[in-house]
């Protein structure tokens, strides 16, 4: 078939090319980033399962991350940069990089990655607080996350963006844990 309208072909090809590039970029981003495993807890029993998404709070084990005193007229949310460092044994240490000028891809000294996040009502939010779950496993996952057995694996790229890679239950991928009855 002779191509008589190359502009139309280009107009139809553009979305396909852009979608492929977007998926490739995301794949590269997730593969090239530093990987961290962070415990999670449900922050609000009414909102743990919103639709097909499991929503949770990252538990960095550091209650002081959003502890800065703020004036009454200040907004309840502010951007923060978190320095993540994973020790050889797997333990994660997190601290806030105050007054740090983030100029990616350079990393702050003593950090394996810098994660862009924000403090909202004393809570750290890094845009990775949702995980897609199949409906039939929702109740079981809900129960396990509530019982503090959940961890999330995230990849943080050089630009400070976090991407969820997997959900762990009892330190195993969630599928394996569910198949084993959550034990």
């Amino acid at each position, binding site marked *: 078939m002779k191509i*008589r*309208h190359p*502009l*139309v*072909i*280009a*107009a*139809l*090809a*553009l*979305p*396909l090319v*852009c*979608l*492929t590039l*977007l*998926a490739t970029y*995301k*794949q590269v*981003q*997730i593969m090239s980033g530093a990987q961290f495993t962070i415990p999670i807890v449900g922050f609000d029993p009414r909102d743990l399962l919103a639709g097909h998404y499991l929503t949770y709070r990252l538990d960095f084990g550091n209650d002081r991350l959003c502890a800065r005193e703020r004036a009454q*007229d*200040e*907004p*309840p*949310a502010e951007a923060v940069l978190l320095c993540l460092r994973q020790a050889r044994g797997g333990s994660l240490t997190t601290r806030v990089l105050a007054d740090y000028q983030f100029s990616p891809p350079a990393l702050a000294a003593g950090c394996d990655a810098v994660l862009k996040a*924000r403090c*909202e009502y004393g809570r750290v*939010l*890094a*845009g*990775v*607080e*949702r*995980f*897609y779950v*199949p409906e039939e496993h929702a109740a079981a996952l809900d129960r396990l996350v509530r019982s503090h057995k959940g961890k999330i694996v995230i990849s943080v790229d050089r630009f400070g*963006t*976090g*991407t*969820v890679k997997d959900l762990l239950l009892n330190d195993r991928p969630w599928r394996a844990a569910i198949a084993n009855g959550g034990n």
Partner: protein
Amino acid sequence: MLGKKLTATLADWVEHGLISAEQREQIATYESGRAVRSRGSWALYSLLILGVCVLGIGVISLIASNWEEIPGLAKLGCTLLLLTGLGWATYVAHDTQKPIRFDVLATLFIVGCLAAIALIAQLYPTGGEPYQAMIFLLVIITPLVYVSKRGFLPQLWVVAFIGTLLASVFVHDEQASWWIQLVSGGESYHHDMQMFPLFLFIPLTCLALGNLAAHFGPTSRFASAFLLWSTLGALTALVATDLVLTLHDDVVPWRAMVPVVVVGLAAGVSVVTRKDHTPVVRFIQVTLIVLAVVVYLPQIAYEDGGIHGAKFQEALGPAYLIASLLLLAALCAAVGARRLFTLATVVVGIRFLLVYLQVVGSLATTGFGLIVSGLVIIGMALLWYKTRTQLAALIGGLVK
């Protein structure tokens, strides 16, 4: 087979000597053939769309039941493959000059692109907002909308644009909303009246973009879509303004009107630079823009002191609505937009009726009051029906 209306019209024209009996037969033969062809093609399209929908639902059901078992990359690959097939079918529709089929397939292709973005967001959750996905979609489909030959895809694009604009305001984290940041002035809270000027912001933005698009050849096909939604948005804004002025106890804070004034200035400049419009049409548009902002001045002036329940504000609402709608009707008459003219005059009639009921008050609940009210409604409806054509001609003549 001809419709009753066309048959009667042709008979009337023959009776008044406008066309001969022979010409009537020729028109009837031509229109009958056209109607059959049209019905045939619509029946075909309806069945095709039904078939595609059933097939699509079947494929989705099949995939959904095995969704978790399919690896992520396979899902993505299948989606892109399906989109490629749909894209090719869309091209064939364009190549064989089937504009309706092209529109149907292109719409499915666009919906498919949106589904693919959602799938990528699910496979690689990076925590973005829906409006970011919508912006991406708008950018990648713009060339496709540009090459379409009819007005449907530009309309779809503009609707998606307005949706994206609203989604960027109502984000999950309201402190990250550009509108909230702009209108709250750094305060940690906001209230509903800070959101209200969006009613004015959106039609004014559409007006500015529509006029801007009309200036350039490549974007001119978006102009009429933007201007249509600007007019529909203006109608909504007029009614909402009337409601706020007459019913609401709260005032619109001045800071929330700043974006409206800025975009209003841009819209005003875009109107004035439309040299293809008559001076009267431009004047009416500018007057409508000025009125849309000026009507809030009393509220802004008394923001701290409060003007709650002030009688003049109760009168200002309907007065503003009726004056603006008459100007809008005049504009529609001048540019030949008959349906919008009818809509504007109907809303004027309804508002007059509401004013009457407000004035009469409890009297309307008595038997005598109900009889009088019924007569007023019937009288107004008949008056409007009898005079609508003359009114359009009169206003159109005045503003041309």
